[in-house]
């Protein structure tokens, strides 16, 4: 469905569109785990990225560490601090994705981060490099559609989706405007708050999705506040996908010793991911 929006990029893989179409055919929503690149070090984070699809990730969000993540809660902020301490740069994150692509050419990868590292890298150069590395989409937290001109032409030229964020505070008229030219999928930030804090109720999610469906035919993923397999199952049933971030990072952080990865780090996160995936797949409530 998104390929029509990118006539200038015929060679584009369009992994995001294909993946959502396949899941729709299977009759289930996507599980979208998040990892912060280089958290707590490059090797661990790359190993985690490579292991995620087998553990049940349908799409993967890779966080680009930033020094001032003002829309994130303490969990992701600390993950970003660990990543930066481990030497994360935008270039380094792209190299990580490129290495992941050597073994997985199917799973969509979306980068999530803030404007400034991209602005500094150079938006055009960045979009070219990201596409070459195998990135499929970009979620830029502090880049509303009003400012998208900074990135959009370059993203379009390189076949990258800029994922549009919507929030409970977004009025219907604004939804219609900002989703008119949206591509990839729509990211619904389910709470007015930072990552890893409150959760929305099922009823709130249902009525939000009703509003969103009127404004777009794109798949919708719900993020912010999804922690348990039950919540992931519910969210992925109400919408087309569920993003789990802080809950996985909390697990990762709990295995660290003095900020360093331990033998428990990978198994702990992957076990949690499998439980979330089982919830999404069976649609059953697991505790």
């Amino acid at each position, binding site marked *: 469905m998104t390929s029509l929006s990118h006539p200038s990029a015929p060679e584009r893989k369009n992994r995001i569109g294909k993946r959502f179409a396949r899941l729709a055919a299977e009759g289930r929503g996507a599980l979208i785990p998040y990892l912060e690149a280089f958290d707590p070090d490059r090797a661990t984070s790359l190993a985690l990225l490579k292991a995620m699809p087998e553990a049940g990730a349908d799409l993967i969000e890779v966080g680009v560490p930033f020094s001032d993540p003002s*829309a994130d809660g303490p969990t992701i902020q600390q993950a970003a601090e660990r990543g930066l301490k481990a030497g994360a740069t935008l270039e380094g994150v792209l190299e990580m994705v490129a290495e992941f692509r050597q073994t997985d050419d199917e799973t969509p990868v979306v980068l999530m981060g803030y404007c400034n590292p991209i602005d500094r890298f150079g938006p055009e150069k960045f979009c070219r490099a990201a596409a070459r590395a195998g990135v499929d989409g970009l979620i830029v937290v502090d880049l*509303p559609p009003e400012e998208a001109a900074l990135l959009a032409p370059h993203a379009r030229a390189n076949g990258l989706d800029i994922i549009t964020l919507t929030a409970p*505070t977004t009025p219907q008229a604004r939804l219609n405007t900002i989703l008119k030219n949206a591509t990839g999928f729509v990211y619904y930030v389910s709470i007015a708050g930072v990552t890893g804090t409150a959760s929305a109720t099922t009823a709130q999610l249902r009525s939000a999705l009703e509003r969103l469906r009127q404004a777009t035919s794109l798949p919708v993923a719900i993020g912010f506040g999804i922690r348990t397999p039950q919540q992931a199952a519910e969210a992925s049933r109400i919408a087309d996908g569920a993003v789990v971030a802080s809950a996985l990072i909390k697990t990762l952080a709990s295995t660290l010793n003095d900020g360093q990865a331990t033998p428990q780090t990978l198994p702990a996160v992957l076990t949690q991911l499998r439980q979330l995936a089982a919830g999404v797949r069976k649609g059953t409530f697991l505790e």
Partner: protein
Amino acid sequence: MQKPSSPEHAPDSLRSGPDANGHFGPYGGVFVAETLMPLMQQLKQAYRQAQADPGFQEELNAYLQHYVGRPSPLWKADRLTERVRTEAERNDQSGSGATLYLKREDLNHTGSHKLNNVMGQILLARRMGKKRIVAETGAGQHGVATATVCALFGLECEIFMGATDVARQAPNVFRMHLLGAKVNPVTAGGGTLKDALNEAMRDWVAHVDDTYFLVGTVAGPHPYPEMVRDFQSVIGTEARAQMIAQTGRLPDAIVAAIGGGSNAMGIFHPFLDDRDVRLYGVEAAGLGLDSGRTAASIARGTPGVLHGNRTYLMQDAHGQITEPYSISAGLDYPGIGPEHAWLNDIGRVDYVSATDAEALEAFQLLTRLEGIIPALESAHGLAYALKLARTLPADRNVVVNISGRGDKDVPTVAAHLGVKLS
């Protein structure tokens, strides 16, 4: 003296910015999370309505006069001028020493220019029906001003302040407590102003329905840079009229310190279209522009996006924000207002700097010669003004914005002078 006709409406006016999207050239804008976008639009709409309502300006003027204590005096600093002339002569400089005038924002209630803006925004927040106010503060002047108006109007007030600044600005923290505000020390990052700003934004995202974010400087997402500038422009409007009344003409130069840049923008703005008036924004060089310990965002920064706007930022090659440094907590910010970034690029304002040491010297000089203890922020502006005045002919007039009083900085200055206060 010819009076420019309604400068805001002249087609080539430098006062007409920002554009409809909040941009000053390539700077400014609204770089915030989607959760906040509708709120930014509401705020802009509320501000436009207030601007169109003569009752709003009338109400604000009444508070400025009867509560803030405006107009603030413009003081001809004869003893300081005499010192400048003696030095100009002794050093055989090109000039013979200009006359210095001081715009006394330190005489406002709560001791700084901050109250001008805070008074404007609190009246707006009340019109918007907000019940709770959050704000960030560095040196504490903006926090104290915000806590003050919240006390005046009976609003709930929460102030975010870097843990480092809480430690070095203890008297201001206590003042905020006395005024009934809750002060949240922020330990994330370096525990300074930029981290306090992140934390205030997080709080705001979580409480968008009832909370007003009272921004203290001419930075942040549109319409804050424009709004804060407008509320602070009272400084320049007064200074313009006062100079004409006292000297019969416009000043030759205006000098003001720059952190985020609100006192500077406030005094510069009414003069932007008077091209013969030279404007100087003085950044904090810290230990020196090339020491790696500086807060000079224009001199040592590059354009980027932080805290809702595109502007000059102190950052590394990878776009990570670096920790600024200045002896003055109020200048210790890695960015600058977007309108300043633009005025720098088009060359209308000269952005220069003063070091910690130069500011300390100017601080003592003003105290000894005029009996005015300035804020360390203002001392940076004064330090450059003293240098500038020495190079100018004696018939020139230079206005320095004394943005705040220095009571809060007395412990910092004492420590640097090796004096132990009990």
